[in-house]
């Protein structure tokens, strides 16, 4: 089914400025939910679907809301991959890649190294009394941990981080900046080389990593498929734990009463994690393409229509979450959409939960005493396809 790159007849057309969305998309989403829950947005070239119930509905119909989107930026960046496939092809690749990310594997195989990595980064900054917790801690931690889970022993945390940035920029390159494409091409070539080398090693000696799991999959996977899927995981695997760490840490530092409660009752870290992911979702939206005519949110969409499921908006839907714009770890529990739903439910969810809520936050807040935000620091929250803090400047007592 060819992609239809125009508004569906009858769909409201809403102009949204990409720079404004990048700065803060939430006011625009609130307006869309109220007045045009399915709207064609020319600057994005898609219909934005913004209400919780409609998004959940679409997620549960992958045979209608297909992941195979033509002209997808992600396809251009990394080539065919499991995020842009439907079952059964998606299931074959996911089954090959998933075992090392399941919760028991995270606990038994990776948790100790994750903890070691976190301590090592904190050792480096502990004596300084000040740091940017994104650049000095969360990002290198996410990158180092990801290298371990993927089995990229031939890459450093800096390599992973650079590759991830280059590909994420390309994947959100709606403005079609040629420099962004060039950087992404270089990054993907580097990843292909690194993956090929480690796939060879894993063929000789399995090590429990994602590359190893894919090399030894019961349903065979080609090297190109391993390379493309590792690229996708590198793209998301750094920014999502990094961003949820940063946003949650800042939220707690701005709410000392909540922080005190969480430090006194570590069982609450899990709630902080889920509420942070709901409040500022690290991934804000993902695209789908209709396989058939289908009516949703009062609009009859023709087959081929391009739709963006705006999960960041669904997570702020007032009909589901009271005072949805507030960060509140005590809110009545309703499932958030930050990990997506259906067959594409985030494969890294268990890794991220452990890495951030069981290790990174508790270690940072226990090791760095009297942690404070730096007043006047320009710690910006940015992005709408992906959203997080660009920095998080803090101080603490060193004696």
């Amino acid at each position: 089914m060819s992609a239809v790159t125009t508004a569906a007849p009858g769909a409201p057309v809403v102009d949204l400025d990409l720079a404004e969305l990048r700065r803060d998309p939430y006011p625009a989403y609130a307006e869309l939910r109220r007045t045009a829950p399915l709207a064609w947005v020319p600057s994005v070239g898609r219909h934005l679907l913004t209400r919780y119930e409609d998004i959940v509905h679409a997620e549960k119909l992958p045979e209608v809301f297909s992941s195979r989107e033509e002209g997808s930026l992600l396809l251009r960046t990394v080539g065919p991959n499991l995020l842009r496939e439907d079952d059964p092809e998606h299931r074959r690749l996911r089954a090959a890649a998933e075992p090392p990310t399941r919760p028991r594997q995270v606990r038994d195989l990776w948790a100790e190294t994750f903890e070691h990595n976190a301590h090592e980064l904190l050792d480096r900054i502990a004596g300084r009394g000040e740091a940017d917790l994104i650049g000095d801690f969360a990002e290198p931690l996410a990158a180092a941990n990801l290298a371990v889970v993927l089995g990229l022993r031939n890459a450093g945390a800096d390599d992973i981080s650079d590759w991830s940035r280059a590909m994420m920029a390309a994947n959100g390159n709606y403005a079609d900046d040629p420099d962004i494409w060039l950087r992404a091409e270089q990054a993907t070539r580097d990843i292909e080389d690194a993956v090929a080398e480690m796939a060879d090693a894993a063929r000789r000696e399995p090590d429990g990593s994602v590359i190893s799991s894919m090399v030894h999959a019961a349903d065979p996977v080609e090297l190109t498929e391993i390379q493309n899927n590792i690229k996708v995981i590198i793209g998301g695997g750094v920014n999502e734990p990094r961003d949820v760490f940063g946003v949650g840490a800042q939220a707690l530092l701005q709410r000392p009463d909540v922080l005190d409660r969480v430090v006194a009752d570590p069982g609450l870290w899990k709630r902080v994690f889920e509420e942070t992911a709901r409040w500022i979702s690290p991934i804000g939206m993902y695209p789908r393409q209709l396989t058939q005519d289908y009516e949703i949110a009062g609009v009859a969409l023709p087959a081929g229509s391009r739709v963006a499921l705006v999960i960041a908006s669904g997570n702020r839907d007032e009909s589901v979450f009271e005072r949805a714009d507030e960060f509140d770890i005590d809110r009545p529990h309703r499932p958030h959409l930050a990990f997506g739903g259906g067959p594409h439910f985030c494969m890294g969810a268990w890794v991220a939960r452990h890495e951030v809520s069981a290790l990174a936050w508790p270690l940072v807040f226990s090791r760095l005493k009297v942690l404070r935000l730096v007043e006047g620091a320009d710690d910006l929250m940015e992005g709408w396809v992906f959203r997080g803090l660009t920095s998080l400047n803090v101080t603490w007592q060193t004696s």
Partner: protein
Amino acid sequence: MPIVIFELPDGTQRKVTADSGTVLMQAAVSNGVDGIVAECGGNASCATCHVYVDERHGEQVGPPNDVEDEMLDFTAAERRPTSRLSCQVQVSDALDGLVVHIPEEQV
């Protein structure tokens, strides 16, 4: 078609008709039974469709498979000997009258 009964944490019961050959989670979701979240849509990736099989029916339903067994260690509510992921329980005529209990939390 078999009837299965979902008992909510407050003790109220929802009787639903389930199609043989589908899974228990599907019967819950398509009938809007509260407390079965099923984030991953039945792929045993999320552990949010956790149920406790009523002890009378434990043997009939059987034990969890390997992947399910792993996920059950990480459910939001405590794991019990009768815990199953409802997305991995195949509905059949033999399960007519099955009672499952929904835990307090799923995420």
